[in-house]
């Protein structure tokens, strides 16, 4: 059954990645999707990132209480945790929930209300028309979203460190610059690119092939979130193994 679904998903992608029938309409849909899937998520991602940064700083500071360890390592550990894991993976799982359910339910509703049939009968490649702008919007915009998340996470750590007195500003700033490796950011962006692809395509698959009524659309949205999250977690491991080991 799983193999059948993977095959169907692959065939769906084959239809999605075709040249758009009308380039102008594709770009209009692309910018609409950037707004729906990306810009509307900035607020939540920023809010979460800021506080996660603060929490990571507090937890690291508590675990590095040995007076022989330089305080700047709190900043060092915070930036490493945020860039390598929290910003790309944590945020992608959050986005899988918000955006994934939105994609699956909108496409699923279009399916059960025959809007997709209407597109097909008109001679429009419905998968290409509906899904391609979402995929391109996600893979091009989410890296920026994750960069914002990284910045705000590190900033949140600095604010909380200062507020609680757990680390001095200078120590924190020295720590976040200590042994900074640009590849960490590249690694995070590569992961984000892959996760963004899943966030756009897996919910589209569940929405597009839904059968039945509103209850089934709800179930499809739930399934979409579950399977997108599972794929993010599994591929997080695979990519980490490939890129960092």
């Amino acid at each position: 059954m799983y193999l059948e679904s993977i095959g169907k998903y692959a065939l769906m992608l084959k239809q999605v990645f075709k040249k758009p029938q009308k380039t102008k309409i594709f770009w209009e849909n692309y910018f609409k999707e950037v707004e729906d899937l990306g810009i509307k998520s900035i607020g939540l991602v920023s809010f979460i990132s800021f506080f996660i940064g603060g929490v990571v700083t507090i937890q690291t500071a508590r675990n590095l209480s040995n007076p022989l360890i330089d305080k700047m390592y709190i900043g060092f550990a915070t930036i490493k945790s945020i860039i390598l894991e929290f910003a790309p993976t944590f945020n992608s799982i959050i986005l899988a929930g918000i955006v994934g359910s939105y994609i699956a339910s909108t496409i699923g509703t279009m399916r059960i209300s025959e809007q997709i049939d209407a597109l097909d009968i008109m001679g429009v490649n419905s998968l290409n028309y509906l899904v391609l702008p979402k995929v391109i919007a996600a893979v091009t915009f989410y890296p920026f979203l994750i960069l914002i998340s990284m910045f705000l996470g590190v900033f949140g750590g600095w604010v909380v460190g200062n507020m609680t007195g757990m680390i001095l500003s200078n120590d924190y700033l020295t720590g976040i610059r200590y042994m900074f490796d640009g590849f960490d950011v590249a690694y995070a962006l590569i992961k984000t690119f892959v996760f963004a692809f899943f966030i756009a395509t897996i919910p589209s698959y569940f929405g597009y092939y839904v059968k039945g009524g509103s209850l089934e659309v709800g179930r499809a949205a739930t399934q979409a979130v579950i399977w997108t999250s599972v794929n993010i977690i599994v591929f997080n491991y695979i990519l980490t193994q490939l890129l960092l080991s």
Partner: protein
Amino acid sequence: MIEVNNIRKSFGDKKVLKGISATFETGKTNMIIGQSGAGKTVFLKSMLGLIEPDEGYISFDGRIWGELNLEEKRKIRKEVGVVFQGNALFDSMTIEENIKFPMRMFTKMSPAEKKDRVNEVLEQVNLEGVNDKFPAEISGGQQKRVALARAIVLYPKYLFCDEPNSGLDPKTAIIIDNLIHDLTVRYNTTTVINTHDMNSIMEIGEKIILLKNGYKQWEGNKSEIFFTDNPDLNDFVFSSSLFKKVKKLVQKEGHFE
């Protein structure tokens, strides 16, 4: 003209279409009637290419659907207008955008030409001043008119309507029926209507096909309905006491018009 030749379709063990042949004429309102579960929707979807029949073929003015390549099929699809049972209007678009959509996808018309055509078809379906509204903001009858306007905007050669009167009050239903008939004559389309609404059949049924249990049971027009002794047709059409009385009256007069 659409020609359907001996099409059969099964879903698992269940045989839904058991060898149906029919011809749907150009410039006429052709109706497919039958009880729920008779195979009407599968038959219509087979004609629309949404369901692949197991056997038989469907031909659009000599072009056999199953023998066409993807590009030729797309070309025919552009000649098809469809009014879905639930209207299938794109709810993220305004009424004007809904009607413009096929023109934007498949023509190189200028914005002004598209706007003019939108207003023209809205006028033809007697609906004006709703251009900037969304489908959810207008009534069911108005949505049906918009669906019709979108279906005819590219001057279709073939017009398919699935239960066009479902959910409409009797007066609005008759207005929609007459509109479909007028548009069929105006655009000389091959119109196929899937219905079980007796008023529609009596109003615009120029050619009627009765389906039952996956078979074609009867074929004729709205006048012939009153003078046939086909038991399946009589059982379906004249099941209500009102229509039984109408039948007696028409038979007494000797004609229906």
